[in-house]
């Protein structure tokens, strides 16, 4: 293949405007708000606020509402195509929360009741249903999740990792978000009025949308649009408020246009994030004015659908693709008198006119910004040769384990002793004044300590641009404290601080503030393979010449929630790397090689072995295998390992890393740090070599992750 482009060849959508493209199209043409007073659950103590609620969500296998909404959109895509997705990327923030919050309130403690809690469980359930054996990624960057998902999908195609990607977003209404935004005083009691002079906030909503993204050199028959480019940035400014001057938003828009090889003058329409909060609309208007001297038509559709959080970027991508395909610019529903302070006039009513290119914005808590560019599917376009995943040289490492930070952990490791447990964070020295980290609870504090230590370890010092963070469960303390206060007060009081801290991307975006890391800030989630997912995602999006990036995996063990969500957990902590995407430095290289969903069995093993270049290459390159066998599917993992040994006849030591890291979803990040340190030393701790020669013989270590995903990371010797 000479070059690769990504075309939107199918869509599925569900929102307060109804199910399907035609219902959505009708609502866009009419341009009247679909917001209605909350009916899904009783609102305590206040009149129900206007929300964007989906009517008649069918019961799907007793699954949480987010999963059901996602399925409503996915089945539309599947019904209209003969293609089978070989990868899946989902943006979401709530995951199983609509069900979880009810169960927790009722005092349910049985882990099986929570098996669909994780934000990553939506994509995993869809992938299982679709028998997808390729990359399955869940991105959770608050309200930019849906747009970030399409960015990752585009890079999967550009890296040749997938040919047909199902990408989108899904989020359901729940009390967590309804009361959370209420506590932040970010809800407009009259319904969202984006860009209006009298706007007072957003309207929380739910929905899901997916696009089928197909790799091709020229537009396939039936292509609606081309995903020409996408970009992201981090404000590194505040956990909830946007950078007032709009420079963070501007950076994401510029990155998307540069990625598409376009200038602002070529845009026919900008689909604004336009939530209706005073601060967002002001910062975004400033950014748009700075981007385009003479802006094209702009509008926000959040007065129509409400703010569907992690789904909004995907919903607006579908709206934008429809706009291109059918020649239509949606009106800015809800805006009566445009705010003169914005200096930006939205299209008040929808209008039919040709649209060849759209920039669509999404900005989230933590200053996580993402923008994408969709264009008409023209036959001539900038096809580029597929590029490989990035290869990283390790500039700095850090970890936190039951033994403490890296030095203390290594002391135990070299003696061959386990170090499972919970790190005492109060004992970790840091130069940051207590007042500045007072709001960071356990996971956010761990991630900040890891990020600072990994940066500190680099010689010479190097500042990270991007941060890629993997977590299965997110900030459990904030989630617990928020819900407890809500339930204990009869839904009267909550903590706005805990709400802001509870989003999965809070730890990485808070670390970005301290490190002034304004590049991509990406939080992904996928159970015990969340760290591998973060490294793989970094490998997809970073290229040689980009600034160094932090890649972090961490998890917290919480007394109440961990026994419900991850009953096997015995420890917490994590690991972090400062990585240079150039590769080939003086230290070991860390190379994401393979990342695939495994819906069961060991059928995924041959593809893994092939990615690694076959049995002979594996023996030649690796002096040991570090394998992560999560307790959730230990017997399945062991069967996969057995097949790996059989088919490769691997004869060097195989180390079961969870025996010394302890059992928790971030264990593989710690194992990766130890693998790097082991390769630096050139030999395993003798106690771990199982009686075999502990020396690596100048070779590297292969990090395998088995179970629900099959993953491989190469730690290569310099």
């Amino acid at each position, binding site marked *: 293949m000479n070059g690769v482009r990504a075309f939107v060849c199918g869509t599925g959508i569900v929102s307060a405007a109804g199910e399907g493209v035609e219902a959505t199209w009708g609502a866009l043409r009419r341009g009247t708000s679909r917001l209605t007073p909350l009916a899904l659950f009783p609102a305590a103590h206040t009149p129900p606020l206007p929300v964007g609620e989906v009517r008649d969500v069918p019961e799907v296998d007793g699954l949480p509402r987010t999963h059901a909404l996602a399925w409503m959109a996915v089945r539309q895509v599947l019904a209209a195509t003969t293609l089978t997705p070989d990868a899946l990327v989902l943006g979401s923030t709530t995951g199983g929360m609509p069900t979880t919050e009810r169960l927790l309130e009722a005092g349910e403690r049985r882990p099986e009741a929570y098996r669909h809690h994780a934000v990553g469980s939506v994509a995993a359930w869809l992938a299982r249903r679709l028998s997808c054996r390729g990359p399955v990624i869940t991105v959770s960057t608050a309200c930019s999740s849906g747009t970030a998902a399409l960015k990752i999908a585009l890079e999967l195609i550009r890296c040749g990792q997938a040919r047909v990607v199902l990408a989108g977003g899904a989020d359901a209404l729940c009390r967590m978000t309804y009361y959370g935004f209420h506590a932040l*005083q970010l809800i407009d009691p009259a319904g969202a009025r984006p860009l209006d002079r009298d706007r*007072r906030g957003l309207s929380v909503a739910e929905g899901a949308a997916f696009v089928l993204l197909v790799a091709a050199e020229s537009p396939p028959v039936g292509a609606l649009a081309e995903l020409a480019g996408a970009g992201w940035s981090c404000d590194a400014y*505040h956990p909830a408020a946007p950078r007032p001057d709009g420079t963070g938003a501007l950076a994401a828009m510029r990155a998307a246009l540069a990625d598409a090889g376009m200038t602002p003058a070529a845009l026919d329409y900008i689909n604004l994030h336009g939530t209706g909060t005073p601060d967002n609309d002001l910062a975004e208007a400033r950014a748009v004015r700075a981007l385009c001297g003479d802006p094209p038509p702009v509008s926000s559709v959040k007065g129509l659908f409400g703010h569907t959080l992690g789904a909004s970027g995907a919903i607006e991508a579908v709206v934008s693709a429809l706009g291109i395909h059918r020649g239509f610019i949606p009106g800015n529903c809800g805006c009566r008198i445009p705010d003169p302070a914005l200096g930006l006039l939205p299209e008040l009513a929808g209008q039919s006119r040709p649209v060849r290119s759209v920039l669509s914005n999404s900005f989230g808590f933590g200053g996580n910004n993402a923008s994408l560019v969709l264009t008409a599917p023209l036959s001539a376009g900038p096809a580029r040769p597929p590029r490989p995943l990035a290869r990283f040289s390790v500039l700095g490492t850090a970890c936190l384990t039951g033994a403490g930070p890296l030095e203390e952990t290594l002391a135990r490791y070299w003696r061959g002793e386990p170090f499972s447990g919970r790190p005492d964070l109060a004992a970790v020295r840091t130069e940051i*004044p207590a*007042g500045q980290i007072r*709001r960071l609870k356990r996971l956010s504090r761990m991630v900040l300590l890891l990020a600072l230590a990994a940066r500190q370890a680099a010689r010479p010092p190097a500042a990270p641009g991007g941060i890629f963070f993997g977590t299965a469960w997110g900030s459990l303390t904030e989630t617990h404290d928020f819900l407890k206060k809500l339930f204990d*007060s009869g839904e009267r009081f*909550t903590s*706005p*601080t805990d709400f802001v801290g509870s989003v999965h991307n809070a730890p990485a975006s808070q670390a970005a503030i301290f490190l002034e890391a304004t590049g991509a800030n990406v939080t992904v989630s996928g159970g015990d393979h969340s760290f591998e997912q973060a490294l793989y995602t970094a490998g997809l999006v970073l290229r040689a010449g980009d600034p160094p990036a932090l890649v972090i995996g961490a998890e917290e063990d919480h007394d109440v929630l961990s026994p419900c969500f991850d009953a096997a957990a015995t420890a917490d902590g994590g690991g972090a790397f400062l990585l240079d995407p150039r590769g080939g430095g003086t230290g070991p290289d860390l190379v994401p090689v393979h990342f695939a969903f495994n819906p069961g069995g060991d059928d995924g093993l041959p593809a893994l072995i092939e990615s690694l270049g076959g049995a002979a290459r594996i023996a030649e390159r690796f002096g040991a295998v570090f394998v992560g066998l999560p307790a959730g599917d230990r017997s399945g993992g062991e069967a996969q390992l057995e097949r790996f040994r059989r088919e490769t006849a691997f004869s060097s030591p195989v180390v079961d890393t969870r025996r010394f890291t302890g059992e928790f979803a971030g264990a593989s990040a710690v194992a990766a740090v130890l693998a790097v340190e082991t390769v630096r030393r050139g030999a395993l701790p003798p106690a771990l070599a199982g009686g075999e020669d502990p020396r690596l013989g100048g070779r590297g270590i292969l990090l395998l992750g088995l179970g629900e995903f099959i993953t491989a990371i190469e730690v290569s010797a310099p």
Partner: protein
Amino acid sequence: MEGFIAELKDKIIETLGLTDVRPEDIPVDGQLIGSELGLDSIDVLELVMMIEKDYGVKIENREVGVKVFASLRALAAYIDANRREKDR
């Protein structure tokens, strides 16, 4: 009023987890938000919740909030006045 101000100082330290702040570090008449204490908009909202919960006084929008949180003395006076109004 001075007794109430002292009470509020303790509440602020507890609610916002200001472990390295002593009550005498909190200015009574000076600016409360954006001062050396490092308090921001989220802290204001956290205090709004605390004030409603502990004193039954609602502070519902930004315009009111800006005036009420101008200083600790202004905050104490606002809570005191509205609490009394309710008790009457």
